[in-house]
């Protein structure tokens, strides 16, 4: 029973905070709300008996990536996001980019609803597996990453390396000028 209550509390925080992230005009507030949302998500992971994933979520997203976000926002020091000039216009008169975005959002919603409807009977199978102790879960996670998902894992790391090299090249070019 308390588990269920906690689940709904954390889910409400996650969803509510995420919604508010989009609603804010101040990017600083958006970042703080996003961190709150990440925190709630990691609480949900803990409820799923995945403490390692929960902590990784906090360390990587809330602890590192959001600090970088904050850093950039502070450097730009843009306290308010300006309202677009077409904000008051009829939805159909908005520029193509926003209309395309709206289309994508609608598609995503449809997809989500479809997935959730399918999930309802798949959930039972996951729950039946039972919990695994912490170390075995970290160990098995590592093993799976370096065997079954080896290619995806290495490809991701190369991708990140490419992004890093790209950033360095861009920064160095600006310095030469």
């Amino acid at each position, binding site marked *: 029973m308390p588990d269920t209550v906690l689940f709904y509390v954390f889910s409400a925080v996650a969803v509510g905070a995420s919604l508010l992230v989009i609603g804010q005009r101040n990017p600083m507030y958006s970042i703080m709300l996003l961190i709150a949302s990440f925190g709630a998500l990691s609480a949900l992971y803990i409820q799923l008996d995945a403490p390692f994933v929960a902590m990784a979520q906090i*360390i990587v997203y809330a602890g590192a990536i959001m600090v970088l976000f904050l850093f950039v926002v502070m450097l730009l020091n843009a306290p308010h996001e300006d309202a677009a000039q077409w904000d008051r216009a009829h939805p159909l008169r908005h520029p193509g980019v926003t209309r395309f975005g709206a289309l994508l959002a609608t598609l995503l919603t449809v997809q989500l609803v479809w997935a959730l409807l399918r999930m309802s009977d798949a959930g039972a199978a996951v729950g039946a597996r039972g919990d695994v102790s912490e170390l075995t879960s970290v160990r098995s996670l590592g093993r799976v990453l370096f065997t079954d998902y080896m290619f995806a894992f290495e490809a991701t790391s190369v991708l990140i390396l490419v992004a890093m090299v790209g950033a360095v090249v861009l920064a160095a070019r600006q310095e030469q000028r």
Partner: protein
Amino acid sequence: MEQATLRFVIQLGIIGLTFFMLINASALLVLAERKIMGFMQQRYGPYLVGPHGLLQPLADILKLLFKEELRPKGADKWLFTLAPIVSVTAAFAAFAAVPWGAETTFFGLLDTPVKLGVADVNVAVLVVFAITSMGVYGIVLAGWSSNSKYSLLGGLRSSAQMISYELAYATALASVIMLAGSLSLRSVVDAQAGYWFGFIPRWYLFLQPIGFIIYVIAGVAETNRAPFDFPEAEQELVAGYNTEYSSVRFALFPQAEYINMTTMSAVATDLYLGGWHGPLLERWGLGWVWFLMKVGLILFAYIWVRWTVPRYRYDQLMQFGWKWLFPASVLNLIATAGFILYFDA
């Protein structure tokens, strides 16, 4: 009393005691810092309040409580209030996963032993790391919301510094975790029980000397202590991120800093110095005294360094972090992995 009730009461007592000790640690450290600084500068330090100035922290707290609370006109109301709260909450919460004593039955009072420490989490190392890394938001938000150039610069420096040193810090942690084969601080400590050749304690300090040095240096940078206290840097930034703060809101920042120092030292003790393991005292169920002494030793070193080493330049800090400390910690990690593979095979 029934066992279950007794157990509950004792567990609550342990949690309360830990909280109380942490609050007092910050007060005591302020006094210790001023006394040691006085000693190093050949003067007395606080002397007038209480015997040998022992009640000075109390006087400081009273003074801070009764000061007027100011908020700059251009400051962001919500974030300005939130910042010190975030700082101090993260500092307190991080200690929750740190064990500080062996299992005990309180001289046969309980049937099954209870563990000394707030919570025994099986990913304790990660919990401590995750929560301490949240502390940076307090400083960054304080810097941004004050709407002052000095504060903003302090906050910016803090975020860059934390990001740079967290990597080396985490990599040093990973080496110890590999040696112990567990993410739980309690099992890391228990893996260090006993002696080599009958007299050298099996502390990871002796297996990981480089890791320990990296951990301590990165720890100083993480807690924003001198010689890495750039977010404050009095000479350049007035007081850095907390320039605009006054009264209790101000008091929370140093408190968070001192509690973070304590947590850092406690984790170092658990990871490298064998926690509560030590000769004699452990046999009488007083292992936690060893723990306190080791933590005190590291804290003394913290203060010692602050008053003897001048502050670096900011670019030197970044250079040192990325070009020396991080590669060193990665090499240390690889060497440790090789060592384990060689001896296990």
